[in-house]
């Protein structure tokens, strides 16, 4: 059936283990393009690990072993000839706690551009402006671009980190609990931003906050003990999930 939805990432029978410990078991999900996909599940279910596998951050974990495939633009990101730096440019990551560099607001964004070979000042300034505008941060920062990023509030710092990720023109933005350290007002701003971002980008978010997943995402996957229990349209997951386990988790009825 043609639903008019194009998939951006194909996760195929993907397994992850750290030494003897199996973290993910045969996960298969198609992540739709220019949509927000939320991955939910209890602590330790493997949701952050799955997210980190999507831009190979788990390469850094000793004894990490993967099986199966994650296809991005038709190519397995775990193929030996993949340029991991380029992959991480295409698939950006925003972390739980805002982690701006100890630099100015301007340089936080310019840094990624410079290491990607963009030297021309005018071009860098243009991208800084567009990225900050895309994140709704331009009006708040345009008069203090050369002050330290640490002077921004937590919510502003997180949006700056998103702007930093956008500056290098990724296709996909991975967000690992991006609002867990933010107050409600900043959370809503980041959520609004996510919805805006999906016009251009594919967003994948890991969250503990059920209401956040329900509010912002188009698709939701529920992971439990390393396995994908259910994946589907968010509206359906939150009104009539297929699996009892999903129902119990999202309703908070885990015994």
């Amino acid at each position: 059936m043609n639903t008019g939805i194009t998939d951006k990432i194909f996760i195929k029978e993907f397994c992850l283990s750290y030494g003897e410990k199996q973290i993910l078991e045969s996960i298969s999900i198609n992540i739709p393009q220019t949509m927000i996909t939320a991955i939910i599940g209890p602590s330790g279910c493997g949701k952050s690990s799955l997210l980190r596998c999507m831009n190979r951050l788990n390469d850094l974990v000793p004894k990490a072993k993967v099986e199966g495939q994650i296809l991005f633009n038709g190519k397995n990101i775990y193929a030996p000839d993949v340029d991991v730096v380029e992959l991480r440019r295409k698939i950006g990551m925003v972390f739980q706690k805002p982690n701006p560099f100890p630099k100015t607001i301007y340089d936080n964004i310019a840094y990624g551009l410079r290491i990607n070979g963009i030297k021309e000042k005018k071009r860098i300034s243009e991208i800084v402006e567009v990225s900050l505008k895309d994140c709704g941060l331009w009006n708040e920062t345009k008069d203090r671009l050369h002050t330290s990023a640490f002077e921004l509030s937590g919510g502003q710092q997180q949006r700056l980190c998103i702007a930093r990720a956008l500056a290098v023109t990724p296709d996909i933005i991975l967000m690992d609990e991006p609002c867990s350290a933010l107050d409600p007002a900043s959370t809503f701003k980041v959520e609004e931003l996510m919805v805006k971002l999906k016009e251009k980008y594919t967003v994948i978010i890991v969250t503990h906050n059920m209401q956040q997943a329900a509010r912002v995402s188009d698709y939701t996957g529920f992971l439990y003990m390393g396995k994908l229990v259910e994946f589907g349209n968010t509206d359906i997951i939150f009104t009539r999930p297929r699996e009892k386990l999903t129902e119990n988790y999202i309703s908070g009825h885990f015994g």
Partner: protein
Amino acid sequence: MAREAFRENMKTLEQDLISAGDMVCKAINRSVTALQESDVEGAKKTIADDQLINKKRWNIEEKCIRLFATQQPVATDLRELITVLNIITDLERMGDHAEGIAKIVLMHEGQPLVKPLINIPNMAEKAIDMLKRSLEAFVKRDDKMARVICNEDDEVDLIYEKIYRSLLSIMIADPKTITRATYLIWAAHNLERIADRVTNICERIVYLVTGKMEEINVSNY
């Protein structure tokens, strides 16, 4: 067990809803008895007691709103709350229909009924039976039972048709009866609407159990 407080609140809400249903059944029964016996006092009591049903409705609605706001229910919990909210709205309107029948007693202003009532009490009995069983289906989360009850609305519609025709004949035979016969048609119409609202309740039970909204039995009236 997590969320015990929420389950407790839902249980209380369910009990409140059942007690509202009892109040409505009594109101329908009383109003039809008052009509049958031209009992002005009984009618006045039914009219006054409708305020209690209204109050009960607001109370249940408030509890639902509080749970929506504080618990952000999803999936079955969400459908349960939505169902309670819908059922109480229907029950409250049924109470208004019973009040409408009681008002017809007062509108007679002491004049006798144009005929002894047989079908109207039968219709009321059927509607009350449907209502009671629909609430039982709600408590049991029994969508099959709800579907069966929905289809019984046709029986009520048939009795209504019969009443309508018989009262029409009386009016044609003796035009002086037109006003009072019309009152009885209104009374029957109120009962017909009550049964329709039972079908609404049944549709909500189907939604609660299956998550799907569907029109089960479309009334001809």
